[in-house]
């Protein structure tokens, strides 16, 4: 059963600092994310939602709890294997764009492929393919700093997409955008989810964005408050508590 889950987390705990300044970001969270679904992790700032995403994306290690990715225990993976997993299977979209200034749009998009060690020609081909898909092909040679906010976020999505990942982790993907451009970016993400079967894990405090996902995981003070099952399952607003939730 484990291998059918893309990501299976059990009893994750994570705290920062020590002594009086100790802060428990997660107090025992269990989450399963199936392939092809779109999941929103919803909560206020400081709720631990970003920490959860970082753990799920193997950017950080939990203090306790287990995390399995495609049937493999994350703890048993070598550093190298974790790096390769993030490089090949995961894509990242952050609230801040984290585009390298003074470098062309294309070069920004192909950064993961460069890190993967792919050859120059193949890199360019895949990069241009993604840019065409995102209708940014004409901007390929432009410096990233010359783009508008919406264009920038599209470049970021292109960068997350270029390595053909299984999962895209998006941390407040529309947080820096106005409503109209935000909606465009959302459409792109859900289209990828629908058409290419890419799993979406979106961290947000935006209820509207969360509502567009198959499933919402509400998190407060480091605990899952409620996990709402897909709305399109008739009347199945099933409320499940999990982990250490009360």
């Amino acid at each position, binding site marked *: 059963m484990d291998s059918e889950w893309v990501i299976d987390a059990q009893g994750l705990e994570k705290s920062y600092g020590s002594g009086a300044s100790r802060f428990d970001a997660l107090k025992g969270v269990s989450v399963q994310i199936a392939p092809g679904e779109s999941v929103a992790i919803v909560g206020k700032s400081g709720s631990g939602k970003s920490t959860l995403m970082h753990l799920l994306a193997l950017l950080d290690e939990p203090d306790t709890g287990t995390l399995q990715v495609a049937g493999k225990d994350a703890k048993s993976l070598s550093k190298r294997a974790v790096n390769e997993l*993030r490089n090949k299977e995961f894509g990242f979209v952050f609230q801040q764009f984290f585009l390298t200034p003074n470098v062309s749009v294309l070069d920004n998009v192909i950064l993961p492929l460069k890190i993967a060690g792919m050859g120059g020609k193949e890199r360019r081909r895949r990069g241009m393919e993604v840019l065409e898909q995102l209708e940014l092909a004409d901007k390929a040679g432009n410096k990233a700093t010359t783009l508008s906010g919406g264009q920038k976020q599209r470049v970021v999505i292109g960068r997350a997409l270029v390595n053909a990942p299984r999962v895209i982790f998006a941390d407040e993907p529309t947080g820096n955008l106005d409503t109209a451009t935000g909606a465009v970016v959302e459409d792109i993400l859900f289209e990828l989810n629908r058409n290419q079967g890419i799993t979406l894990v979106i961290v947000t405090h935006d209820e509207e964005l969360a509502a567009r996902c198959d499933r919402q995981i509400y998190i407060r003070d480091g605990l899952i408050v409620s996990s709402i099952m897909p709305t399109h399952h008739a009347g199945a607003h099933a409320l499940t508590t999990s982990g250490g939730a009360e």
Partner: protein
Amino acid sequence: MRTKDLVATAISNTFRSKLRTTLTVLAIFVGAFTLTLTNAVGAGVSQYVDAQVGALGSPDVFIITQASDAASTGDGPVKYDGTSSSVSSQQGPPGTTTKALTAADLTKIGDTAGIVSVDPIRSVQPDYVEYDSGTPYEFSINATSAVTTADLTAGAQLDGGASEAQLVLPDTYVTPLGFSSADEAVGASVSIGITDILGAKHTVNAKVVGVSLESLLASGAGANDALIAELADAQSGGIETAVTSYGVAVAHFDTALNADGITALKADLQSDGYTASTIEDQLGAVQTVINGIVGVLNAFAVIALIAAAFGIINTLLMSVQERTREIGLMKAMGMSGGKVYTLFSLEAIVIGFLGSAIGAGVAIGLGSALSAVLSRGLLSGLPGLNILLFEPTSVAFVIGLVMLIAFLSGTLPAQRAAKQNPIESLRYE
């Protein structure tokens, strides 16, 4: 990430902050420039000294004198003994007197195993030289020229075994004597005037076989054994003055001897009461001084480079700070700490290479021009001296050294970048 991509990324990152990179490169430039120049001075002067060593004598030659009697200073005057004592000579170094070598001494030295031949140095004092009854010029002959290799500009070396009287003329005499060029002087017959001990004047003819550059360490014209013998005979005025003592003798030793063999041979001669020294021994002091001066100059250049190294550290630390989020992103995307380390180390090396290559290039350009000007002006009195000699290996060494220093300076910032936690870096504002 492929090595090629790492290098390309490092180079493009270096130029991202142009002003900062330029200033750091300038600091390295100063160090590399200085180091290249001081090395060139060292090489230039060494080459000149080597040429002078050739002018002083062949490598298989000992200059032999009587060992100075050190005991005499402590124990008072030594009793005269007609069989062992010999006359004093004035040919010792200033402030000392050296006991002379007698014919018996020469035989004894010649009999020492390893010595091939021994010849006393006979000094002759000619008065002048003239060509074709032109203006006579004052003239001197280097007593050891028979065993030396002259720094020739035309003609050939002296032939020690020839029976004809041969002369190597210093090139400063060429024009005054009436020759249009050094080549024209070769083959000409000149007259040497000499006064004998009774005051009578004689002239001796000699053939010019070569023209030499004036040497710093051995002055005067060169004469072969035949010419020296002829001049010595003229000088003695036909009277056998029974000059059986000589200040200095020149001994050829077996060329097959290695350094240890030479040392052993010196020890043998020492135990017989003679001081033997090779040309290298005599020049050792000069070379030590030159090496010392070059060493001090190099030390200053290295100090400049160390200061520049702190500049590199500072530049890269700022760069790491500025690019915290970029580093975080690259690590989030699966770039290993090792690759991040390599990337920043490469940036340091690129900065080092830029500074050193430009520094060395400018040093070679300016130095060559300066060297040309100096050898025509200030240093024209030292013909053959190329004050700045740029050797490809030493220039490559300087560039390599600076790149190594840059790499070492880059380790601290690179380590800091490699250790960054991707999440913290991404949160960094």
